[in-house]
């Protein structure tokens, strides 16, 4: 994929020219996504241009650190890339690069410039040519291991000297494996091959390095990218570049990641959504037998495998919690009764299933676990939930899983949020120091900010009388919705079709917001009888709960009641096994209870007494609207 490097930077340049604060946000976002050398270095140039104009980010927590780069190769432009990656994670790093291939002296001599630089981190990129096995392919395994053991020890000795001389943490690169075919499959059969000997050396380095040495795992990074993509022979011979230009970006990002992770503990708590996250479908609507989970379908298999990945995190010490918009008894049913569930209820330290906003529930989890919200990660299939959490509980890291369950595993496993740094987990207990007060500080949710949040969603609704084209979707909702459904009256497609252009008042509402189209989300059917307008069906998708959709529908209903000269609107709540959440719908909408029995409760409001609700949804009328 080739993006023109010319037009692609115009927007950023304009933000820079006007010194807009969003320049830095946009630059950070672009940098986080950037994987190509030319893109990454252009972003770095823009950053340096801003700094040259005294236009600095207004970020609160800037760290300053010192990084020394050493190795048997040219360390520019790697140094520039690392500097940019660190700056964009608020680490304004001073970088010192050693002379070409002079690292042994620099790391061991007490009068070296490395000592006087006093680095916080020393990055070492040793040349493979010096440490790979020097003998012949036919040499014995013993002689290979003998030499490599010494080579490993000599690399680690350099690290020790640098660490003790400067106090710095050491970031040590291991070796990229060769990617040419030569010498053929014999490479796997003798220890003396470059392939096997470097693999063994990498393993030995990893297994014997002390805790102050952090491995920059080039073997892994190159395998991830592709061995041929990681090197560039011309760049090596022309200017002693150790990597291809694009791979240098991967290495720079890795170095920045290591530096950050040394100072910031990994996340401790994984909060999971349920519907469309742990299983396919909506448990409250589809029921235990209707959700997709397990090996009978491809989607079901994705969800099951995703649960296994989460279970593995839990085995590694990550604390799991549930935060789901559901009735509790629906939410727990799969954990207790579904045979394909990998996760069980006692895998979770906290279990929140209700209809309150997720930030409230996350606060509840924080107080139950007595952990700081900055150690929390929320995964959800709904981008609006991620957004509301990032607005009202900004300390929590939100991870949107995307729309395809086959991407979920990669999304979570590539998030780099739960990387284990040591088997002993020394800092596991530090968590209890977090205070609840700090949690509250992070939570900004109140009625006023909720309004602002809804406004920021830029919601638009289309209210339409039933159209023939909508009949299948309307019938599907009427027959599937269980939870936000006042009367649970089912109708066949033919019955729905007969409502089109009938004397029933029947309309649907489609909602879209800045995240996209939510589709047809609410249906109202009512019938005029004398001077009453009687609500026959009122249902809504739970995806749009607390979005003021019901308020908008109510405004619409009363406007229609007035134009039909009805002086009263009547509604019924008919309880079912699944619709407790709307038990108090009519009272909260200002209706008065008229009578009640086991089968139903009846409510009414005089048309003249109805006060229109304010909403943050703008209304667009459909083309064939009659109301």
């Amino acid at each position, binding site marked *: 994929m*080739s993006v023109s490097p010319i037009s692609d930077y115009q927007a950023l340049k304009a933000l820079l020219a006007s010194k807009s604060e969003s320049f830095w946000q946009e630059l950070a976002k672009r940098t986080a996504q950037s994987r190509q050398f030319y893109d990454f270095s252009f972003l770095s*140039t823009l950053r340096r241009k801003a700094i040259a104009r005294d236009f600095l980010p207004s970020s609160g927590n800037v760290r300053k650190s010192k990084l020394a780069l050493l190795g048997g190769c040219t360390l520019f432009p790697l140094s520039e890339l690392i500097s940019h990656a660190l700056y964009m994670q608020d680490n304004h790093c001073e970088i010192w690069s050693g002379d070409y291939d002079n690292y042994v002296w620099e790391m061991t001599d007490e009068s070296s410039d490395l000592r006087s630089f006093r680095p916080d981190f020393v990055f070492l990129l040793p040349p493979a040519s010096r440490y790979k096995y020097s003998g012949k392919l036919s040499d014995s395994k013993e002689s290979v291991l003998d030499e490599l053991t010494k080579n490993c020890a000599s690399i680690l000795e350099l690290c020790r000297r640098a660490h003790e001389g400067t106090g710095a943490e050491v970031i040590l690169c291991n070796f990229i494996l060769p990617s040419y075919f030569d010498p053929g499959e014999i490479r796997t059969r003798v220890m003396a091959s470059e392939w096997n000997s470097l693999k063994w050396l990498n393993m030995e380095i990893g297994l014997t390095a002390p805790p102050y040495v952090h491995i920059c795992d080039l073997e892994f990074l190159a395998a991830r990218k592709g061995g041929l993509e990681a090197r560039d022979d*011309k760049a090596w011979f022309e200017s002693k570049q150790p990597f291809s230009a694009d791979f240098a970006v991967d290495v720079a990002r890795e170095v920045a990641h290591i530096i950050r992770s040394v100072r910031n503990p990994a996340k401790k708590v994984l909060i999971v959504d349920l519907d469309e996250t742990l299983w396919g479908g909506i448990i409250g609507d589809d029921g235990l037998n209707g959700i997709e989970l397990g090996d009978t379908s491809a989607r079901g298999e994705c969800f099951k495998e995703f649960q296994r990945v989460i279970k593995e995190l839990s085995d590694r010490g990550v604390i799991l919690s549930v935060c789901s918009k559901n009735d509790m008894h629906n939410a727990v049913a799969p954990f207790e009764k579904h045979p394909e569930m990998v996760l069980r209820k006692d895998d979770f330290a906290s279990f929140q299933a209700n209809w309150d906003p997720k930030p409230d529930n996350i606060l509840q989890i924080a107080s139950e676990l007595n952990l700081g919200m900055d150690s929390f990660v929320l995964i959800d299939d709904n981008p609006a939930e991620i957004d509301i959490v990032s607005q009202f509980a900004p300390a929590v890291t939100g991870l949107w899983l995307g729309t395809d369950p086959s991407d979920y595993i990669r999304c979570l496993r590539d998030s780099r949020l739960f990387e284990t740094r040591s088997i002993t987990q020394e800092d596991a207990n530090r968590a209890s120091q977090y205070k609840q007060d700090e949690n509250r500080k992070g939570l900004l949710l109140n009625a006023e900010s909720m309004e602002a949040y809804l406004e920021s969603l830029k919601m638009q609704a289309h209210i339409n009388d039933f159209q023939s084209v909508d009949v299948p979707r309307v019938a599907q909702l009427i027959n599937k919705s269980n939870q936000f459904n006042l009367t649970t009256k089912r109708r066949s497609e033919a019955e729905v079709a007969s409502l089109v252009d009938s004397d029933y008042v029947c309309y649907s509402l489609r909602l879209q917001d800045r995240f996209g189209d939510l589709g047809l989300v609410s249906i109202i059917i009512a019938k005029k009888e004398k001077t009453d307008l009687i609500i026959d069906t009122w249902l809504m998708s739970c995806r749009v709960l607390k979005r003021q959709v019901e308020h908008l529908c109510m405004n619409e209903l009363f406007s229609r009641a007035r134009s039909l000269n009805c002086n009263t609107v009547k509604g019924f709540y008919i309880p079912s096994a699944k619709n407790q959440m709307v038990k108090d719908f009519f009272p909260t909408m200002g209706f008065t209870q008229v009578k009640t029995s086991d089968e139903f409760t009846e409510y009414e409001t005089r048309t003249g007494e109805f006060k229109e609700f304010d909403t943050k949804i703008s209304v667009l009328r459909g083309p064939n609207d009659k109301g």
Partner: protein
Amino acid sequence: MTKADVVSKLQDVFDNVFVEDVKVTEELSANDVTEWDSLSHITLIVAVEKAFKVRFGMGEVEAANNVGGLADLILKKLQA
């Protein structure tokens, strides 16, 4: 693509690589730009290769003395 087109596109590449403002002409050479040293030259050449979707051979770029020479080289690569 004419030589003038190449030079004009090079202007964008230079803007993306150097912090200081550089007016790109055929006569411009490394001596005229403070930042254009042997290190930033590496970044510049990779950027040029990406922008024009060409790949220079060993030593080819060194033979070009100024932007005009570089533009000729790019044109030769584009026609090859």
